[in-house]
C-alpha cells in the first residue's frame, strides 16, 4: 500500500511538473498578442488551453501554436476586427497611400542627402539665397533645387496628417508636394520625366493624390502615434530603391519586402492592396518610360528591373512583371477580403 501510495504521489508530482512546463510555454506563446489583449483575455485563454491539454503534455500542440501565432499577429495589426469588404479595401488603400508617401519621402530624403554631399564637394553651392550648379568653371543658378527639400517637408507633413486620421487636408499638401517635386526635376529633359527609373521615382505623389480621393468621404482610423510613420522614411531610404547609392543591396531588400508582404496576405487583405499601390507607382513610371521610348525620346539601356536587378533595354519587361504582380496581389486581396468580411 505504501509503495502504491508513493507511486501515486510521484505520478501526481510528474503531472504537476508537466503542467507547469506546458503553462509556461503557453504563456510565452501568448506574448504574440498585444499587452492590452493579454491583460483582458490572457488568463481566460490560458485556462482553455490548459483544460484542453492531455495528460503528460509538455509541449503546445502544433495547431494551438499556429492559432495563437496568427491570432496574436491579427490582434496586433487590427486584422482581427469584423470589417465589411468596403472597409477592408478602404483600409488597404489608406495603408497604400501611407506607403506611397513614405516611399516618396524616402526618395526625396535620399536626393536631399545627395544635394548635401554635392554641397560638400562643391558641385552645388548656395549663393545669394539661391542654388547654383557648377558646369565646368562656372556656376549656373538653379532655383528649382529648392523643390526637393520643399517636397520632402510637404510629403512628411502629409504622412503625419494621414496617419492622424485627417485625409481632407492631406490632398492639397500632397498635390503641393508633387508640384514641388516636378518643379525640382523640371530642368531635366524631357520634362518632367527626364530621369525615370528607381533612382528618382516621381509617380508616388501624383498616384497618392489620386488614391486618396476615395478616402475623403471616410474618416480613417488614427494611428496610435502618427509621428512614428516618419521613422519609415529613413528606413525606406535603405529598403526601397532610391538614389541613395551605397553598397547596400536595396533592390534585394525590396524583393524581401515584397515577399514578406505577400506572406502577410494570409493575415490581412489590406497589405496586398497597399502593396499594389506601391507597385502601381513603379508600373506607371515604366509605362510613361515605354511611351517615351516608343516616341524616341529616350534611348534603350536606361532602365533597371527592380526585381532582378539587371539592366534591360526595354521598360516593357519590368512593366509586364509589375502589372502581373499587381494583378496577383489584387486577386489575393479580393479573396482574403471576402474571407475577412465573413462572420
Amino acid at each position, binding site marked *: 500500500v505504501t509503495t502504491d501510495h508513493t507511486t501515486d504521489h510521484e505520478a501526481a508530482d510528474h503531472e504537476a511538473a508537466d503542467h507547469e512546463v506546458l503553462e509556461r510555454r503557453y504563456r510565452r506563446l501568448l506574448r504574440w498578442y498585444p499587452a492590452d489583449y493579454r491583460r483582458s*483575455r490572457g*488568463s*481566460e*485563454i*490560458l*485556462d*482553455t*488551453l*490548459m*483544460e*484542453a491539454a492531455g495528460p503528460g503534455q509538455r509541449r503546445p*500542440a502544433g*495547431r*494551438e501554436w*499556429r*492559432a*495563437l*501565432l*496568427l*491570432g*496574436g499577429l*491579427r490582434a496586433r495589426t487590427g486584422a*482581427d*476586427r*469584423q470589417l*465589411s469588404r468596403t472597409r477592408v479595401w478602404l483600409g488597404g488603400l489608406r495603408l497604400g497611400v501611407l506607403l506611397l508617401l513614405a516611399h516618396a519621402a524616402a526618395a526625396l530624403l535620399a536626393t536631399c542627402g545627395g544635394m548635401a554631399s554635392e554641397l560638400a564637394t562643391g558641385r552645388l553651392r548656395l549663393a545669394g539665397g539661391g542654388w547654383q550648379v557648377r558646369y565646368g568653371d562656372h556656376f549656373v543658378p538653379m532655383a528649382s533645387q529648392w523643390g526637393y527639400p520643399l517636397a520632402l517637408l510637404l510629403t512628411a507633413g502629409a504622412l503625419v496628417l494621414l496617419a492622424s486620421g485627417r485625409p481632407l487636408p492631406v490632398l492639397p499638401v500632397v498635390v503641393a508636394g508633387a508640384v514641388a517635386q516636378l518643379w525640382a526635376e523640371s530642368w531635366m529633359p524631357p520634362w518632367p520625366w527626364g530621369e525615370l527609373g528607381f533612382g528618382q521615382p516621381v509617380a508616388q505623389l501624383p498616384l497618392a493624390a489620386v488614391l486618396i480621393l476615395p478616402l475623403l468621404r471616410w474618416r480613417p482610423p488614427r494611428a496610435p502615434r502618427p509621428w512614428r510613420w516618419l521613422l519609415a522614411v529613413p528606413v525606406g531610404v535603405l529598403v526601397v530603391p532610391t538614389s541613395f547609392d551605397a553598397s547596400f543591396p536595396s533592390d534585394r531588400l525590396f524583393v524581401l519586402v515584397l515577399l514578406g508582404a505577400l506572406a502577410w496576405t494570409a493575415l490581412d487583405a489590406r497589405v496586398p492592396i497597399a502593396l499594389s499601390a506601391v507597385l502601381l507607382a513603379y508600373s506607371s513610371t515604366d509605362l510613361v518610360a515605354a511611351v517615351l521610348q516608343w516616341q524616341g525620346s529616350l534611348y534603350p539601356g536606361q532602365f533597371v528591373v527592380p526585381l532582378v536587378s539587371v539592366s534591360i533595354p526595354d521598360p516593357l519587361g519590368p512593366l509586364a512583371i509589375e502589372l502581373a504582380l499587381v494583378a496577383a496581389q489584387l486577386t489575393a486581396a479580393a479573396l482574403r477580403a471576402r*474571407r475577412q*468580411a*465573413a*462572420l
Partner: protein
Amino acid sequence: MSNSKASMRAPTYFVLAALLDEPLHGYAVIRRVAELSGERVRLAAGTLYATLDRLAETGLVQVVREETVNGRARRYYALTEDGAAAVRQEAAQLAEAARIVTDATRRATATGRVSPA
C-alpha cells in the same frame, strides 16, 4: 443585426450552435463544437477566441458570468437574441441549399438514373 449579408464561417456557425442550449465557457464550447460536428471541427483556442471576439463585437454573443478557477479567469458566453436569429437563419439557408441536392437525388432515384444509397 449587423453584417447579416456576410456569409458565416464554419467555426462561427458551430460556436453559435454550441451556445443554443445554454451558456458555456471556452473549453466547454470547444467540446460541444466537436460533439455537434462529429469531431470534424476541432477548434484551437486561438481560433475560438478570435471567433468569440468577432461575435461579441457584432453583438451576437455576450459574457453572462465570470469566475476564477485555479487562479485563472473563466467566462461563460451566451447567445444574444440577434445571435440566435443569425444561427437559425444560417441553418435555414444551409437546409435550403441541401434540399436542392436531396430533391435532385430523389428525382434521379425515382427515374432509375441513380440507385438508392
